[in-house]
């Protein structure tokens, strides 16, 4: 018996009050941070800024959700940032090649985009399958397997983009969707419309437009609900927790752990690939997210700050959401407060340490 030293802690009302605070420190921290930024940052509460936060957190959220499943299953996926980059380039490349006339056929934008999305997802699926099979069948440690896949994906990305050049000349409809809003209101014309500014909106009026609910928000909510459901209410989620808690227990309970692990890494890669596709929609080009931006590390940090453990078996979608918002609101608020962006790295590092230490002080029993 390796670790039975974790003696059952007696529950007293005082310690459980402390424990509730300890286990939910991230929520309190987020609230305090928001309050501080409301008072110190310019326009932090402005509608536009709040929507900016959501908009820019979309891809981080997907990567962190991907990492949540993997970390609960007691793994780690170092490749998410690069799989995202790979999917971005593949998606944008396919759209450009089909949309442009260079092959003699000029595909309609819609078809080109649809095929681009499929191509991006297939590329990321391949990465996930590779990681999953290496980890489950060949028992390669997740750290190494995903590091290897990272290298390969990065190489292919550079190859496909001639060394990292952005893929441009994509249809404009991409950004119209990616940066669009669900609801527009033109106060001059007293007209409203969905998904596009009301007809007859003139150039000067664009500034006056009231935009509500970025498309990114809707997508984020859809994935939030879907993945929350998957983790909380399905066999897949339950087995993910079981595998992370005790691989032995899962195997003996008859769970096909190999297949399950492959599914977890495929899910992770697909979510990363989706983030890459959304990145194409948001930027209107295939701009590879460069090395050094450490997307996977921020994703892992968000999951851990949310209260998951690298020892597996715990973590929640809603906690990850809080972790991501702590990091992205901090970045946003610091920028508005006039503090330079490098504090993001320092602050993330410090919060991460706090998260881990708090986690050790309040073991998760309930």
């Amino acid at each position: 018996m390796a670790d039975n030293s974790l003696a059952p802690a007696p529950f007293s009302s005082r310690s459980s009050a402390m424990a509730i605070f300890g286990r939910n420190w991230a929520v309190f921290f987020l609230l305090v941070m928001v309050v501080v930024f409301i008072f110190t940052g310019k326009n932090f509460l402005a509608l536009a800024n709040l929507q900016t936060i959501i908009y820019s957190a979309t891809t981080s959220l997907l990567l962190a959700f991907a990492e949540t499943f993997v970390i609960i299953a007691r793994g780690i996926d170092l490749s998410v940032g690069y799989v995202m980059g790979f999917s971005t380039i593949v998606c944008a490349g396919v759209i450009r090649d089909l949309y442009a006339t260079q092959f003699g056929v000029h595909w309609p934008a819609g078809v080109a985009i649809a095929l681009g999305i499929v191509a991006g997802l297939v590329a990321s699926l391949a990465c996930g399958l590779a990681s999953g099979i290496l980890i489950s069948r060949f028992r390669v440690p997740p750290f190494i397997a995903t590091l290897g896949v990272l290298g390969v994906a990065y190489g292919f990305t550079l190859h496909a983009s001639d060394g990292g050049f952005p893929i441009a000349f994509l249809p404009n409809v991409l950004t119209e969707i990616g940066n669009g809003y669900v609801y527009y209101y033109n106060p001059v014309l007293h007209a409203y419309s969905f998904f596009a500014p009301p007809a007859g909106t003139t150039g000067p009026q664009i500034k006056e437009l009231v935009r509500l609910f970025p498309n990114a928000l809707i997508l984020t909510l859809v994935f939030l609900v879907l993945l929350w459901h998957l983790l909380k209410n399905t066999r897949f989620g339950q087995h993910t927790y079981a595998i992370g808690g005790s691989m032995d227990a899962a195997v003996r309970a008859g769970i096909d752990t190999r297949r399950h692990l492959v599914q977890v890494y495929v899910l992770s890669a697909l979510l990363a690939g989706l983030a890459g596709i959304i990145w194409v929609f948001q930027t209107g080009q295939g701009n590879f997210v460069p090395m050094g931006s450490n997307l996977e590390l921020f994703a892992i940090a968000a999951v851990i700050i949310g209260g998951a453990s690298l020892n597996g078996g715990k973590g929640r979608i809603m906690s990850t959401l809080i972790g991501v918002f702590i990091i992205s609101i901090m970045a946003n608020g610091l920028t508005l407060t006039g503090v330079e962006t490098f504090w993001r790295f320092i602050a993330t590092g410090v919060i991460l340490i706090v998260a881990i230490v708090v986690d050790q002080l309040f073991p998760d029993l309930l």
Partner: protein
Amino acid sequence: MGYLLEVRNIVKRFGGLTAVNNVSMGVAAGEVVGLLGDNGAGKSTLIKVVSGVHRADEGKVLFQDREVDIGSPMDALAMGIETIYQDLALAENLNTPANIFLGREKMKKALGILNVLDHEYMHEESRQVLEKLDILIPSLRNKIRALSGGQRQAVAISRSIYWDAKFLIMDEPTAALGVAEQKKVLDLVNRLKSHGIGVIVISHQMHDVFSVADRLVIMRRGEKVAELVTKDTNADEVVSLIVGAETVRK
């Protein structure tokens, strides 16, 4: 005969080493048999043949008077042969119902289409099976991590009973427990008898075996050296059989 589970002439070799050599034994329903032997005597190997971890090189396994082929732990589970391992195989990060239903979760339809876990059903069923076996767990919502060793053991046993185990193999059930908890687990084993379940207990603790087992099977160096009725023997005789009579005579 009337055995619930019977093994006949089992031989299991690992390379040049014969771990189990021509061993036969049987356990009736509602009977507890203690399997004794020194380290390396072949107890675990024999048990693993029954629980599907190893496949015997020779011999056969009969369950409910029919010859069965147990190719994997899953086959054994499907027949109702459950093994309670020393490390219990519980997911410590999940609560009691989740562990009892692990791998066999009960689903329900939500909104008419979505298949979701039926947490309430699993909670209620778990409560009932624990009640049936007189097991006290403070709160079913607590993670296994918050339970004591004896409580964990009880959860593992109730899981087997809930899933209609007809035969239980218990590997060192009291090894990691305090004295009070040992007694509770042994009481639980005695209660299992009254539910008509056949049990094999492997243990080093002579006291345990004598307090629950109806019969004793003793192995040494891969062979069965004796089969005794518990009330007709005593600890000294058993010990001398375990270590080998020659050693004792010296």
